[in-house]
């Protein structure tokens, strides 16, 4: 990243190659539309390129930083879109909605850690997994989620916290993939 901060385009290309798939996958999971996901990923990488001097390794890996930018950009895009689109993106069944040509691109992640996270999510009580997915992947605020689920705000916050704490327990010392 030091080279990227020094405006080295070749170094940036390495970063792009290493993280483009993960960035696009997250954007697509959140946005649910290929064109919007491309816009989000493109904005994110250009933001990373132009603000690389802000990268602080002490606060996480390049991948974590990159995906954090993608997540924020996707939330901005989702909050500009209709509630209908966002509800769709927050649905954990999104993969089943992918059009046939795109399904051929879906790769089985061999990474054991990724499988571990999917299993940990699946093992959460449904109501906890649901609020986490609506928040993180759907871009909904906690007040919107409370309204959608007709559930008190305090309950929604509590489910988020319990869910994340259970995930932490499941995942043990595993942390986001560095790069």
């Amino acid at each position, binding site marked *: 990243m030091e080279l990227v901060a020094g405006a080295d385009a070749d170094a940036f*290309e390495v970063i792009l190659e290493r993280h483009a798939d993960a960035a696009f996958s997250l954007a697509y999971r959140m946005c649910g539309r290929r064109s919007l996901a491309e816009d989000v990923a493109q904005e994110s990488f250009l933001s990373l390129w132009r603000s690389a001097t802000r990268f602080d390794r002490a606060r*996480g890996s390049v991948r974590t930083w990159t995906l954090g930018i993608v997540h924020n950009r996707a*939330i901005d895009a989702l909050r500009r879109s209709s509630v209908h689109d966002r509800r769709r993106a927050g649905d954990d069944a999104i993969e089943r909605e992918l059009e046939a040509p795109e399904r051929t691109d879906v790769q089985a992640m061999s990474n054991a850690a990724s499988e571990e996270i999917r299993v940990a999510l699946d093992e959460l009580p449904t109501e906890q997994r649901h609020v986490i997915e609506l928040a993180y992947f759907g871009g909904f605020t906690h007040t919107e989620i409370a309204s959608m689920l007709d559930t008190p705000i305090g309950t929604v*916050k509590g489910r988020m916290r319990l869910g994340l704490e259970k995930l932490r327990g499941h*995942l043990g010392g595993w942390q*986001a993939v560095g790069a």
Partner: protein
Amino acid sequence: MSSREENRGCERSVDAAPYVLGALADAEGYRQHLGECASCRAEVAELQQVVDTLPASVPAIRAPEALRERVLATVRSEAELLKAAHSPAADAPPRAGRRRPLRVSLLGAGLAIAAAAAAAVAITVGLRSSTQVHVRTAQIAANIPGAHASLRLRSGHAELVVSGMPQPPLGDIYEVWLARSPSTVQPTDALFGVTNTGSGSVNVPGDLHGVQQVMVTREPRGGSSHPTSPPLLRVTL
């Protein structure tokens, strides 16, 4: 003792989980609280590690080749410009590192604002019955009198559109800032340049709730964490 146990006494600890998930409606308020509450900071740090793993649960899809090409084309073009800026033959002097922060209160600074643009004008344009665009005109600094800028607000989305702006010197870029008070100026990752004719636009990211002004300064490429030059334009919300 874990941060959860330490945190039992803080009534704001319930906001840590929605905050790290990006779902807390009043994120800015909690961010300010984090500056004062060590136990909430510890809670956020622990939960953030869990949230950082969530992207790995997503089915992997190969990024389109066209996306990579578009990004790389822009990056290589900008790298060439920067290379030229730092070459000995370039007019612009080479720049080492970031500038020192400008030690003034930006909102209180006695900026010379062009008289013609002194009064910020807010107009509302109805596009359709269900969609409205609110346009706020910017105050422009006196040293760029031909410039014009406006902030277009629509459905919670803000886009800054500029025209007649001088191109920033090679090695510099325009940066958007959000001022929540005279002493709280928050950087954004919205960095932008302008075309040969001085036109440009940039999405203003983040939550504008509680923001008093959107400002633009000229900064070294890569942006700054604190403004290093006076604002060239300000939009009062």
